[in-house]
């Protein structure tokens, strides 16, 4: 089973408060802790477990600048066999369709049975996996939280829907799946593990290598463009209780009593 997992390096929202920079052109990037997108980590873990069950290899791929190499290496330390970085100035400013087109070119160079993405990344778009599948004309399932192999041409897949219910499908390979969190428990990556892969060469593929015409991707190819960042306008919002902890607790207990919050 040849599996490709698409991964993205993103600001880690559990480590940072995301702020808008002064002129609203970007988020504040100084001291920003970045890591692999939460959903992608589950996808890599799933790929590794599949490989360990049925054989084959796991390749991780990321579209990004040189800094993205760090997450490719991290996922290799986790157990992926190969890593590829897709990097070119022409890729900058790509929208989801652009990223999917770049990934498609890489998929076409290989001989993959299964491509995994995360369900969504930092901008919450949840678009790349479904676009990639459509471009490849492969079947797609999103929000996958269960994968079982029927035979080497077919898999059984569970998709998470509302209320914690699950839709079950039988899907022909090759296919693209977007992975939902909770499908597994991603393994821990030790410093030692990272050191072991520190000197591995990670090939970088450019627009030229991939046969992508620069104007079809990046900023020129993007149909959806971000204009600016801004802080969400405060709506009515909560009444923030102020004072010493004791005072706050006094007020809170009064409210709880009034609203039936203490039985």
């Amino acid at each position, binding site marked *: 089973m040849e599996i490709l997992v698409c991964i993205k390096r993103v600001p880690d929202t559990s480590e940072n408060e995301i702020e808008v920079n002064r002129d609203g052109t970007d988020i504040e990037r100084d001291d920003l802790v970045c890591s692999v997108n939460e959903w992608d980590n589950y996808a890599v873990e799933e790929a590794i477990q599949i490989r360990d069950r049925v054989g084959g290899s796991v390749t991780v791929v990321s579209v990004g600048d040189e800094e993205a190499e760090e997450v490719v290496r991290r996922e290799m330390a986790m157990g992926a066999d190969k890593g590829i970085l897709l990097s070119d100035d022409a890729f900058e400013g790509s929208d989801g369709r652009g990223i999917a087109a770049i990934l498609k070119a890489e998929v076409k160079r290989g001989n993959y049975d299964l491509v995994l993405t995360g369900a969504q990344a*930092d*901008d919450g778009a949840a*678009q790349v996996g479904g676009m990639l599948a459509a471009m490849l004309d492969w079947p797609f399932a999103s929000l996958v939280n269960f994968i079982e192999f029927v035979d080497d041409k077919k898999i*059984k897949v569970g998709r998470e829907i509302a209320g914690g219910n699950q839709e079950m499908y039988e899907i022909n390979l090759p296919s693209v799946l977007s992975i939902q969190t909770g499908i597994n428990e991603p393994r821990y990556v030790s410093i030692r593990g990272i050191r072991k892969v520190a000197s591995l060469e990670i090939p970088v593929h450019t627009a030229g290598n991939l046969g992508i015409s620069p104007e079809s991707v990046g900023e020129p190819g993007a149909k959806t463009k971000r204009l600016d*960042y801004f802080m969400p306008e405060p709506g009515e919002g909560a009444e923030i209780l102020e004072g010493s*902890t004791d005072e706050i607790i006094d007020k809170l207990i009064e409210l*709880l009593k009034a609203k039936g*919050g*203490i039985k």
Partner: protein
Amino acid sequence: MTRQVFAYIIHKDGVADDTALEMVAAAGKLDSDARVTAVVAGAGSKLDSVCNEAASSFAEVWKIDNPALAYVTSEVLRPMLVLILPKNGIILVPHDHFGMDLAPGLSIKLDAAYLPDAVDFQGIDNGKLKAVREEYTGQVSTHVLTDISEGVVITVRPGSFKADESKRGEGHVVDKTPEAIEGGLPAGSCRFLEIVEAEVGDVDITKSDILVSVGRGIEDEDNLEIIHELAEAMGGDVSCSRPIVDAKWLEKSRQVGTSGQTVKPKVYMALGISGTFQHVGGLKGSPFVIAINKSPRAPIFQVADVGIVDDILDFIPELTERINELKG
């Protein structure tokens, strides 16, 4: 020229989803002069009741009725939509588990632009639509500009447009089935098998009046103890956000949100929960929401009635102690 906007209607058991009327509002905000058509897919008499319901709110209803859609899956529906939708239309789909499955691929097949998870529209100028999105779990917003001159597929965030209840539809249902299945149904490279229902847990949080809900801010499994203690003092039940279930610290049946339970307590305590729409989407019946979060900018403070900016690990034990004192 009047623009054509299409709204995909999700339905279950013969009843349209809440998002249907939100789509009416979204389409109105997008372009108040547009002609808005509901697209309803399914099979049999239940489909007809949804179509009739939609006809009272939309100018027109397009129906796709086929046994292959008895349970609608995006892999079967997508090629049908590609056959009937015009190449330069505006297509609205709810940004939920179905929309996420259907819409990105649909935009590729229609060769249209894609705008995911829109929360507001701010006008169309010169073939370009200005919209508002959120990033980083709602911590920051962005304006985006989408070139819609060759059509666009937009997923609309559930709950961000207030349902438009005005009944101004013309009751006109058009059967688009023959066009949609022209050339036969797609080969079955993706076969729907069954629905596996969620497991029932030890408590039914949908029945609780008081929920003490915990999120990733609790940091460690051992810290859950303070949440259980508070819930006990208040006489409520413990619920949680998704990461707590993903980490297997609590059962799935305690998860509040779009992929968990829909709850309607009187009082909801959101402790160390950021307040993404997928979480807040599980709160119904306007409970009194108290949020405690160490970040003053957490989006949960937008939906809460009362907020406290503090570290839950410090605050909760003190609160519990005081409630217990009070109860003697």
